[in-house]
């Protein structure tokens, strides 16, 4: 909730600051700024690039602030877990009503350090309630058994901590630590956790970058990063190409012939809404967990999309173009190659972009289930060892590659079908 609040404040603050600053710099005179009606005019809304950059910075800022990252100065960090020394007194009561007090000192250390437990000074402890010293890692807790606090053979029970009475199940706050009493009457020392995330939940950005460098140099579990990503891409490309080789001709046939259309319509329309991930169990049963299975899955993921795209491309040809070609003396074969195919290319490219996106998502999921190498395999293996930094690194790389594929497809589209949307 705090993070959300900070995020909203950052959003609003950055917007106001940007408007304020930009009002000094740019005497707005472009066409959009001269429009008097902008609300509701979709064409007047273009992504504010400054906002995009600030948005990315904001994410890294919050990430850094809540992980105690060294990327930002420490005064911007969210309050971290308590580290240092704290002590509290407790009081134990005998059934007879006699009371005695003891002191517990807690040394809270960062998780990376492992201090020696200092020995208790030779203090003359007279009563039945003993002093104690414990070490606790930040974010962790430590149980102090009542047997170590109270002399053996004494039937005393701890009744108050830090001057406040306590009973089993209750928690008392004493300065920087919480003391909770277990159902058996022992004390659990829980230092304040603060707002920062433990590295095991969310590592700092520099830790992720460090992992990226380490893994790209030395690999993870004897597989290099390049190999992992390469295998995923290889599967996607192979499955996608197989899907195109079958799907595009099938789509053309469905667009041009009534028997094909009728025969495959129910199959295509049925398979289209089935998510490829739902096919994983069946694919594993049929083809096993290795390459054949994964590539068949990606083939199926791409197939229906490409079929439908090619069919739409053929159906979308303007009849006047076909008529024109016929009355210019073109044969059926020529109409196919000179009119129908080029006319359908923009649709096919749109389909290919969708199919590549779906395949990339599917391959990662399939590798999560079973794989020897691959981006998904890497993150699922890392998650089993709680290497959250590798998991996050993997997710970021998967996102970047997916985005990169889409950008490449768009560039190819602009280059190969410049007439898209201009017919």
């Amino acid at each position, binding site marked *: 909730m705090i993070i959300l609040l900070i995020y909203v404040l950052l959003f609003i603050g950055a917007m106001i600051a940007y408007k304020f600053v930009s009002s000094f710099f740019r005497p707005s005179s472009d066409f959009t700024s001269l429009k008097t009606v902008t609300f509701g005019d979709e064409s007047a809304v273009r992504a504010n690039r400054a906002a995009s950059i600030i948005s990315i910075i904001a994410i890294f800022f919050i990430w850094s602030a809540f992980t105690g990252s060294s990327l930002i100065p420490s005064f911007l960090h969210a309050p971290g877990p308590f580290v240092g020394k704290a002590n509290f007194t407790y009081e134990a009561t005998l059934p007879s009503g006699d009371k005695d007090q003891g002191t517990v000192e807690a040394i809270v250390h960062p998780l990376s350090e492992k201090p020696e437990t200092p020995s208790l000074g030779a203090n003359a402890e007279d009563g039945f309630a003993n002093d104690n010293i414990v070490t606790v890692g930040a974010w962790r807790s430590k149980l102090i058994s009542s047997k170590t606090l109270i002399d053996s053979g004494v039937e005393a029970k701890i009744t108050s901590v830090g001057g406040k009475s306590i009973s089993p199940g209750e928690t008392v706050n004493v300065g920087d630590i919480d003391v909770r009493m277990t159902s058996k009457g022992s004390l659990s020392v829980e230092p304040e956790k603060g707002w920062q995330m433990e590295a095991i939940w969310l590592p700092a950005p520099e830790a992720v970058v460090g992992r990226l460098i380490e893994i790209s140099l030395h690999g993870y579990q004897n597989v290099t990063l390049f190999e992992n990503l390469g295998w995923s891409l290889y599967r996607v490309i192979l499955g996608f190409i197989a899907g195109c080789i079958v799907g595009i001709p099938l789509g053309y046939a469905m667009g041009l012939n009534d028997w094909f259309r009728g025969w495959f319509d129910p199959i295509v329309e049925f398979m289209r809404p089935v998510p490829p991930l739902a096919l994983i169990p069946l694919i594993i049963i049929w083809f096993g967990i290795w390459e054949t299975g994964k590539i068949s899955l990606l083939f199926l993921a791409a197939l229906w999309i490409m079929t439908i795209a090619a069919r739409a491309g053929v159906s979308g040809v303007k009849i*006047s173009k076909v*008529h*024109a070609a*016929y*009355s*210019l*003396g*073109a044969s059926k074969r020529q109409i196919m190659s*000179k009119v129908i195919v080029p006319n359908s290319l923009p649709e096919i490219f749109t389909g290919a972009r969708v199919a590549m996106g779906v395949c990339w998502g599917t391959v990662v999921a399939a590798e999560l289930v079973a794989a020897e190498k691959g981006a998904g395999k890497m993150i699922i293996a890392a998650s089993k060892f709680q290497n959250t930094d590798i998991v996050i690194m993997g997710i970021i790389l998967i996102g970047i590659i997916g985005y990169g594929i889409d950008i490449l497809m768009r560039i190819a589209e602009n280059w190969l079908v410049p*007439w898209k949307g201009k017919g």
Partner: protein
Amino acid sequence: MSGLEIDNVSMRFELPDGGHVQALKNVSLDLKSGELLSVLGPSGCGKTTLLNIVAGFLAPTEGNIILNDKKVYGPGPERGMVFQQGALFEWMSVRKNVSFGPDMKGMPKKESDEIVDHLLDTVGLQDFKEKAVYELSGGMQQRVALARCLANDPDVILMDEPLGALDALTREKMQGLVLKLWKETGKTIILITHSVEEALLLGERLVVMAPRPGRIHKEYNLPFADLGVNADLREVKKHPDFSSKREEILTMIWDMEEEIMGRQE
């Protein structure tokens, strides 16, 4: 006999609900070689259906189309077609569009290049030869369409409102171009239009069609096309006969439209 004969053509569309539409009934027209016929009529009178039958995209339920003593089956390169808009191939350059017909015939590149150069000169697009068609304005695109049709050297050119989507000024210029091309090439042309002025200016002969069922209502022989070949089209419009004919035909079509409306109520 050389020429185009539309022989007693009827067209009846069966509707899925069991009814039918009589789009054309007993339409007969003879066109001499090199004649320019313009066809006018209220919407729904079957003008485009008639053109599609002549082009061979539709088979008439009765009657025949006879071109140069041969019965027409299906589309063919001897009947070129110019559409309203959007029938160019946007994946080809202007030059490729114009040479489409010769290329389909397998004409050697050298010959087809000559034809293309000549035609692009005629329509005034020599400088746009290598441009993509979607980079051209609407008027230029229609010039490409005309050149593409002529490149195939058809016997008959069928024009389905070729200037319908152009602005008034461009349209006037293009009317002049159509007349020029007609005179230069001596092609037989059937021009379908919604504009009475255009039909009067360009048509040597003018046919007014009536709807429900689509049929020929009245035929005129006009002098304006011949006048317009050598004169400014705006001068032709000042001709006293021109305005009286225009009023007469407008009233005629207006009455037909009224009648349709009345029948619907």
